[in-house]
């Protein structure tokens, strides 16, 4: 049981890190970026590929993986979001364009075999792979009944440190003030001399870098990297997390991530594996019906 709680905290950290990227974009643009789960997967896949197929050290691969994810954030902005803003499209259109991009990313990785044009990106096709043992130094500690792997334990301080940095940046720096101004009212922000497009690009870069990092952590800690990890593991759970915490709220997303991890593990332990998926979604449904602003949200945003 204790071991399960510890696992819940590990997986909760990954959910939190992933969901913060989701909620950051939603908070500022009021748009759900459905390509976020594909970026999560891309971060993990690219890092794996750099380590295993291109023989890079893990640290270099990590940095390149995160950089590539951040770059995907720019792609999302320039390909999917900015053209739609220019055309004053309804927000629902952005949902479809980001879904299209997610489809492209997943399909490109999925088709990455050693003979395809994507072989430089990924060679394992639709298979699930894991980092070879020893890529990341991974001592295992035993405390009482608990088994703690360093690669999993490391997730927690990284997540918390990043959240603190992000919280500080959002609250106390010039950039953070700019981002919050855009979130509050893009038109007023523009009149105050802010470059709104640049702020939005920055949001997507930060969000996607966090998403890619979450993917790498997922790949290292759970030993499961495939084109479908984003879609199967975090896409809808990320939604659940940001709803639990309150849409657009960063601390909410962090708490929501841990909460979902714990809820899932508890239902797994008490009701068995069959019910655990359903219970998380039932919780999501109930949360929205009973308290739609989430645990930490203060107001309901009406636009999508």
């Amino acid at each position, binding site marked *: 049981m204790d071991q399960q709680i510890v696992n819940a905290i590990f997986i909760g950290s990954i959910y939190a890190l992933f969901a913060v990227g989701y909620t950051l974009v*939603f908070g500022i643009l009021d748009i759900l970026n459905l390509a976020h789960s594909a970026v999560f997967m891309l971060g993990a896949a690219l890092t794996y590929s750099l380590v295993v197929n291109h023989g890079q050290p893990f640290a270099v691969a990590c940095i390149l993986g995160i950089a590539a994810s951040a770059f995907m954030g720019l792609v999302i902005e320039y390909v999917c979001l900015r053209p739609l803003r220019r055309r004053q499209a309804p927000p629902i259109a952005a949902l479809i364009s980001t879904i299209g991009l997610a489809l492209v990313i997943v399909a490109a990785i999925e088709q990455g075999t050693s003979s395809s044009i994507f072989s430089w990106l990924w060679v394992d096709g639709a298979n699930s792979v894991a980092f070879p043992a020893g890529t990341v130094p991974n001592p295992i500690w035993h405390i009482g009944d608990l088994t703690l792997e360093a690669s999993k334990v490391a997730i927690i301080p990284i997540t918390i440190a990043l959240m603190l940095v992000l919280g500080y940046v959002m609250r106390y720096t010039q950039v953070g003030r700019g981002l919050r101004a855009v979130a509050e009212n893009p038109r007023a922000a523009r009149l105050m001399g802010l470059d709104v497009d640049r702020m939005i690009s920055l949001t997507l870069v930060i969000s996607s870098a966090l998403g890619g990092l979450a993917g790498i952590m997922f790949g290292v800690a759970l030993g499961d990297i495939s084109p479908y990890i984003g879609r199967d593991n975090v896409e809808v759970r990320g939604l659940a997390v940001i709803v639990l915490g309150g849409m657009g709220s960063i601390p909410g997303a962090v708490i929501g991530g841990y909460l979902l991890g714990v809820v899932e593990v508890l239902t797994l332990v008490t009701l068995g594996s069959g019910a655990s*998926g*359903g219970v998380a979604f039932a919780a999501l449904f109930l949360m929205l019906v009973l308290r739609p602003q989430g645990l930490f949200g203060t107001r309901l945003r009406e636009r999508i």
Partner: protein
Amino acid sequence: MDFFFNLFSDPVGFWNSHTLLISQIGINGIIATSMFLVLYSGQLSLAAPGFMAVGAYTSVLMELYWHTPFAVNIAAGTLLAALGGLLVGLPVLRLRGVFLAIATIGFIEALRLGVILNVPITGEGLGLKHAADPLGGVPIILVSLVVTVFLVWRLTKGRLGSAWSAIRQDEIAALSQGINVAQYKMIAFVFSALLAGYGGALEAHLTFIVAPGDEQYGVTRAVQILTFAVLGGSGFVLGPLAGALIVTLLPYIFLQAGPYINVFSGIFLIAVIVFRPQGIVGRGGLAIVRPAWWPRARARAPSPG
């Protein structure tokens, strides 16, 4: 391009050799119309796959256990889905926009992962096999589609349609005009559930099995149905229909791309939505915006006088 070539050179042969595809287009058309109803009344509901599952499982279970006639099974599935729509609608219709979308995702996944996968009578993960295919072939589906689209079109032209339109454009203004917003939203939601249940019940009889896959009754399906409506344009009833047709045919349109089919499908989706944000069917031309680096058009000389 053989596919489209055959369509014109040998329509009868095409019809006979692509029955399943044509049926699937018809069913997707019905489901897209169900999606149209909720979007037309300003509700971003993704609940359709849940109601499809209700319709599908009800009709198949009745067939397996009670051996009732086909029409009765379908009708029961449809009505039960509508009842489900009423029950789900009561709590969730207070939500708007993306919150409604997420709540309905919660509903469909709780139904699929929580109920269908855990209740023995549904065959759990394996699904249910049913013996016969009592569907009289494509005609029933296509006739249903035409009738559905016509009825929904009539609805949007009447009193209901005006109310829905008003609610979609501005809920508070609609309320201040004395429109009972909650009631009209509920009517749209229940009709939509009814159509989804009908489409689901028919779809269950396309093949000999109903199984609770993600691409059948899960989020993937919900997103696909949303794509029908948004890609096609949700201002007019034929829009989602066009969307359903195009999305169902995407694998054939990009047949040449071989394994890279989804890459091209994704690029196609982005291109359509970027240049036609209002959807394929709708007013206006391609939304082409001058990029920043493109030279400004020269101002015309002011007309004399």
